């Protein structure tokens, strides 16, 4: 935690004394505003803080143990270095109440990320970026399943609004989609246990597959409807809401690969002037993923709006 405190403090100070950079926008492509999604990565580079993201869901049983009810509290911070390049830091505290009555708690591995936005088409409301996530091995608690090895996930992120649809389909113009495609590559292909042995007395070997990741969202922007298509007279706070369905799927592709797992998350995001609130149901796609419905709640700050002259500007 001391490292996090120092890193955040240094970032605040560095950003506060740095004046350069052009005023840009979080999640905009032309007149389209893409909200920050709760479960999947966004296609844009921005100065933003999610604090907290609270989640609860029931995990499926695995070879390592029975299912558990997992509650998480996460922080995600992203900082623009230039107007198109940014870095991120994430931490996630987990509490797992296992089926056998035991409880485990602690931090998952720290996450670091970098993202470069290489394409934006304002009239077409399109945006695309590439990025790299680094799940830093050995920085979390083994009790909650944090791995001792790192995982690197290069990815591509896209967003597209449908504001250019013809007049006959004008009520579909508020629609937008985002997508995130990545391949999670562990730094170690297998781990040999020193405490668990197979029936022949040999140390058990756990294999770590590469994992294909596929996520995204379908969203219908009521602010877009009211500002650009038709003011249907909806009162606040509904006129600032964005109904959304997120999907977050993954599939191991080698080393004893299993099937798809993931969740479908229907919910709603309310976007205010300097922050947004999001609430989603978390529905597992199969029993391998888990059981029952979970919840995800997020408070998200637009730092470029809160601190336009300091913390919310690109460093360069």
């Amino acid at each position, binding site marked *: *935690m001391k490292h*996090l*405190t120092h890193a*955040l*403090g240094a970032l*605040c100070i560095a950003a506060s004394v740095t004046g350069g950079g052009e*005023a840009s*926008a979080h999640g*905009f492509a*032309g*007149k389209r*505003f893409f909200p920050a999604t709760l479960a999947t990565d966004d296609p844009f580079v921005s100065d933003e*803080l999610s*604090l907290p993201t609270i989640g609860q869901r029931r995990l499926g049983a695995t070879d390592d143990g029975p299912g558990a009810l997992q509650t998480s*509290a996460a*922080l995600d911070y992203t900082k623009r270095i230039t107007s198109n390049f940014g870095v991120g830091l994430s*931490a996630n*505290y987990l509490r797992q109440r296992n089926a056998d009555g035991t409880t485990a708690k602690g931090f998952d591995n720290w996450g670091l990320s970098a993202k470069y936005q290489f394409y934006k088409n304002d009239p077409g409301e399109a945006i695309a970026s590439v990025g790299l996530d680094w799940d830093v091995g050995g920085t979390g608690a083994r009790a909650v399943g944090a791995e001792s090895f790192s995982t690197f996930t290069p990815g591509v992120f896209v967003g597209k609004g449908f504001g250019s649809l013809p007049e006959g389909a*004008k009520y579909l113009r508020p629609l937008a989609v985002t997508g995130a495609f990545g391949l999670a590559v562990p730094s170690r292909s297998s781990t040999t246990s020193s405490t668990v042995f197979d029936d022949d007395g040999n140390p058990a070997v756990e294999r770590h597959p590469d994992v294909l990741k596929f996520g995204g969202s379908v969203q219908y922007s009521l*602010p877009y409807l*009211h*500002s*650009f*298509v*038709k*003011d249907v007279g909806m009162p606040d706070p509904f006129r600032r809401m964005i109904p959304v369905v997120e999907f977050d799927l993954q599939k191991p592709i080698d080393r004893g690969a299993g099937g798809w797992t993931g969740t479908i998350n229907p919910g709603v995001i309310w976007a205010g*002037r*300097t922050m947004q609130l999001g609430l989603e149901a978390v529905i597992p796609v199969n029993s391998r993923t888990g059981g029952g419905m979970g919840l995800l709640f997020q408070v998200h*700050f*637009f730092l*470029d*709006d*809160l*601190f*336009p*002259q*300091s*913390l919310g500007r690109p460093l360069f």
Partner: protein
Amino acid sequence: MSRRSVVVLLLCLACGEAAAHAFLDRALPAVGSVTPQAPAEIRLIFTQKLEPAFSTLRVFDAAGKRVDKNDKQVDASVMRVSVPPLQDGTYRVVWRALSVDTHVTEGDYTFQIGK
């Protein structure tokens, strides 16, 4: 997350000079509306104060010809432009808003005059 980390973050948030992007909150005539009577002006109400010198508001007819009087006025978060007596038809309002914290937003919408 430790209490110390939370304190650092909240301090950062607390000392912020809150401003924001200027979103179009309301418009007269309303976005996508059909009005039987021609308006004397187009009025847009934003969620933020605007920088008058760099905010624009223009009105075009269905043929793409500019029809407003080019006399845009900005008063805090309200931007308006007057128009001559307009015939029945469809008109497009095109705006660009620079909020006082230098964030730019832009957009357009149509309204109709007639029954």
